[in-house]
């Protein structure tokens, strides 16, 4: 027989690995992960573009998989592993970041964190993707500036070389 849980003004402490570091944070159960990362943990690269999972600007890697952090409650990530763009950049630029930079792939840069994580996940799972696979991998990241081609070209450039798994 499970005791009915008491209704309290909960603030509870959770912990999870963020960019390789164990972090602790106090949250309400209804706190959205994107907001907790940005407001409580100072991680600004995931952005809020639409707040309902349509634009991909809030993308993070959860246990290596790209997910929409605006659709996840912080409480759900207890004990798990999150990587944001800050984590990818920790030890110098990854091959993808270098190529995006060299090819001037981004314009305003707002979609960049989400795109970089999505393409990092792609190449980690599939080092030599087809053009269609590249497009599908970033299809959930809306970009209004670039027309996507310069982004796709940079990913193709990296994919054509030997690719060592990032993160």
């Amino acid at each position: 027989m499970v005791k009915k849980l008491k209704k309290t003004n909960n603030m509870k402490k959770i912990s999870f690995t963020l960019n390789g570091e164990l972090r602790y944070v106090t949250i309400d159960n209804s706190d959205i992960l994107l907001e907790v990362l940005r407001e409580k943990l100072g991680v600004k690269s995931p952005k809020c573009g639409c707040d309902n999972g349509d634009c991909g600007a809030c993308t993070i890697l959860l246990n290596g998989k790209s997910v929409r952090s605006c659709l996840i409650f912080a409480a759900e990530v207890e004990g798990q592993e999150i990587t944001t763009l800050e984590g990818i950049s920790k030890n110098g630029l990854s091959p993808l970041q270098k190529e995006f930079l060299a090819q001037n792939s981004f314009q305003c840069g707002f979609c960049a964190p989400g795109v970089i994580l999505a393409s990092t996940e792609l190449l980690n799972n599939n080092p030599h993707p087809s053009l269609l696979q590249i497009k599908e991998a970033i299809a959930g990241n809306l970009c209004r500036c670039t027309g996507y081609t310069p982004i796709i070209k940079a990913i193709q450039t990296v994919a054509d070389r030997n690719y060592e798994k990032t993160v």
Partner: protein
Amino acid sequence: MPIPHDFEYAKPSSVDEALDLLSEYGKNAKVLAGGTDLANLLKQGFPVPELMIDIKGLAELYQIKLTGDELFIGSLVTFTTIIKSDIIKKKFNILWDAAHLVASNGVRNRATMVGNICSAVACMDSAAPLLVHDAFIHLKSKNNERKLPVAQWFVDNRKTAINEDELVMGVSIQLPKQKYAGSYQKLMRYSGEDLSQANVGVLALEDSSFRVAFGSVGPIPKRSLKIEHFLDQKEITAAVIEEAKAMIETVIAPITDVRATKEYRMHMTKVMFERGLKEAIERLNLLKN
């Protein structure tokens, strides 16, 4: 956008624990799997539950299992997992096709097929594939267990036959004993992420019988026994297809909304039915040879 009211959160470590909670809280609890539908609803002002039951700690719900002729897909299987599954690609190809068209990869990494049919939104992609395979929904509560045919699962837009204290354990299909191939066709406004404005599932079987389901063109997705009987045992010629397409007008009742007009939905359902039928037959022929 903050959610104005807080809720209790529990992450049971066993199915029994989850069922106990459901039996206690009933409609005051919500089951949280991928959360891609639920999080949005709460942000839009949907009533906040007293308790959120996060079932992602229940290992047995992640399985895809083939036991004899029964293919079982656990309720925590995501669309990404479906896409990566060789068994589903080979044995349940229509669902495999549909999974590729759901949202985008970042959503598919979390969204579950069972969550999709529990939401019961008209534009579901999982429904037609399950309907043409006469799937069963496996339900469990504290004191009961049942298997519900999928045709009885969908009651109305956003309403299923689930009881307040029940948890969906998964979905199963009985693999036909003959060769078969399916095709899923989805009407979208473009190639990127979109909710379907109409969808069609077709299954072609070796014994020249067919299964046809229509989704997003009525409050609930449905099989069309009328069209299936018409096609049964016939040689599928252009004339037969035209006649079947004309029948669609008596079978579905699409509406006009901000996404599409009923005229376009009706026309496209016919086009997709034809393309789905031809593709299913072509795939079946490949299997036969």
